[in-house]
């Protein structure tokens, strides 16, 4: 499927919200994916992961355990941007998604054992563009996005939106 940048962005945004990501983080993931659609397949893997309560240690920068990369990467990028001495995400490996998020936020990610270090980077941002998306991947995104939709009832259909049921005038 040939998908516009905005279609991809909106679908990823809704999918992220569908799994319970806060909206600002969902927006950033969406913008990152629009610039790096090659990471979409692995995004689906990340979307399927449970969102746990993370723990934070700020003593020498930022050290996170139980991170969900889509939710917590942004705090790491903030810390790296502010030149924190060390930003470490425990138990997360480097993948297309971490690379896409990093490129979007102007940081880099480096694997260190089973952990991921986040550092400031000077690489230029990638430019969003139209892309080809595999239909099954799009379908999976739609499934997550659908978690934000509210089923219609007869009552909501009548009062929830505008205009008349027929408009012959």
């Amino acid at each position: 499927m040939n998908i516009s940048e905005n279609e991809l962005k909106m679908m990823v945004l809704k999918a992220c919200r569908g799994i319970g990501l806060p909206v600002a983080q969902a927006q950033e993931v969406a913008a990152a994916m629009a610039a790096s659609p090659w990471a979409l397949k692995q995004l689906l893997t990340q979307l399927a992961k449970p969102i746990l309560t993370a723990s934070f240690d700020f003593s020498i920068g930022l050290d996170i355990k139980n991170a969900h990369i889509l939710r917590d990467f942004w705090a790491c990028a903030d810390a790296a941007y502010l030149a924190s001495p060390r930003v470490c995400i425990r138990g997360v490996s480097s993948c297309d998604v971490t690379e896409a998020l990093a490129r979007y936020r102007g940081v880099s990610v480096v694997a260190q054992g089973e952990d991921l270090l986040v550092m400031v980077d000077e690489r230029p941002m990638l430019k969003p563009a139209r892309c080809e998306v595999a239909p099954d991947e799009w379908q999976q995104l739609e499934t997550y996005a659908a978690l934000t939709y509210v089923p219609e009832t007869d009552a909501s259909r009548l009062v929830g939106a505008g205009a008349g049921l027929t408009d012959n005038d």
Partner: protein
Amino acid sequence: MKDFVFSQAKLRHPDKIMRLSRLGAMFPSRLSFLRSLTRQLISDRSTVSRPHWNIDEDGFGTAVYSVTVGGHTYSLFSITKSLEPEMRTDRVIAEAWDAAFVLYDGVPDASEIERLSQNAPLQEAGRFTQKDLCLSRANKSVRLFDQIVASLRSGTGLPMGMIQSIGYLMRTTAVYGNGKFGIADRREIEARPGLQGPFMAEMLTVWLIRTFTHDLVEHVGGSQLPDIVKRQLGIGNSTGLGMAPFLVSHPLLLHSWMVCRETALARVRVAEIDLEKAAQLVTLSRRVAQHLLEWNIPDPTHQSRIVKLRNEWANLTVGLSAEVLNKNSALDCLIYKSELGSQDLQELTVSWMLEPFGDLVDGLAECMANPHALALDPAMSCDDLRKILVEHCGYATEVDFTSPHASEQFWYVSEAKLEPRIGKRHTELGADRESPLDISRQIHALAQDLQGQSGPIWQFLAQVPRHRLAVQRVQALVHNPYSEIRDNLVDGEMAPIDMLRCKLSFFGASKFDPKSQLWTRITLAQGAPLASDLAAGTARDDWWLPVSAP
């Protein structure tokens, strides 16, 4: 090149301006996007051609109109089909329309016309390409269309009363842009001359659709309408909740629109006014009075506002003359005087006052696009964020959200049509899937959770990530004070119609005809120059507020 520095008064405070009730009282102005478009068409000396016309005697078939703007050629593809009356609904649940349109990048050849013929009538169910810039559909005002056809066929008098009161032959029920259903992203065209401003491609679509409706009625009627009548026929629009969230989800863009308008007013308030401009204002004040007299709608609440506004306008402008206006501070005094009246009067006065001052105002239209997204300042301290909350966010932090009424409504997206809806939180299901338009409530929650916190805000957000959006929006208020609607958008009394009117006034809509708190009909481009005016070089940028005999 000479640099100009404009004198200006103080901007009106966002606490006063960004309230729903005031946004719901806005009028079109010379900064409205359709006005910017027609100025562009006039300055470009654009002409419209019709390279394809395959419409049968009943008015069904396809047509293509082409126009060059800023060195690029764009075409409106139009297709009309017979529609059973019971299928004619303006709601988003509709699956068929009298007409469907695509604004095309370039001039479509036969194979592209075939592709568009297959897909445009499907609208949301169709699939489009990067060559397609906007997608739209419209329903006829059947009564007016049929009456004009009958008049043209019989040679009897045109139904001028209906033409004036309805004001359009078709009304669009959606105009999609920016990548929807596969069409081109705005990014593809945002740097093109003439299309840099917000919604310029959509406005061009609307203006060309209007041209098509004129040709269509003449074709079916078998003779021509006088140009003076065609100018009175704009293009209608029926707009519901789908439009409302845009203002909330594009805070920096909203700021740009509002600050340009407020800056324009601030410049005009202290402007030197010569006799020519003063006389223009007097003439325009009479046009306003006539427009208000001709603006009659069925809804009793809104009609009573119009009636009140007629009286207020008469009082504001009584004794007005070019000599009176040609004095220092005359305009500023009028603004103060208008503030004794309703918000409708105040906002009408603002739009009126801007009208003769193209030299001070029109350049601001170039500042109304805003490509930036919200960004976090992670280094800001919790203390500094609290100060911003105190200074800018009383509209949110002072709401008592323990009252059920304060969060009685919730926004959501319907599963059936993927469109925004609004529901009652305490009686309807779905609030657990609420769309995040409850900005005041989010800011209120942020303020609560921020109590007792210290250190940089990024550390707070690492631990409480749900507040990231609220922090971004609060921080943005420092440099973008018009970025937020300063009201509670989930309050039991919140009326989405106010948000619709704000956005539509920026489009250039007039004759708001609210059908409920959720949707409205409007008229666009009534009085605007025709394609033939452009061709003849007689098009003028003087069509603010349509009246029957300009």
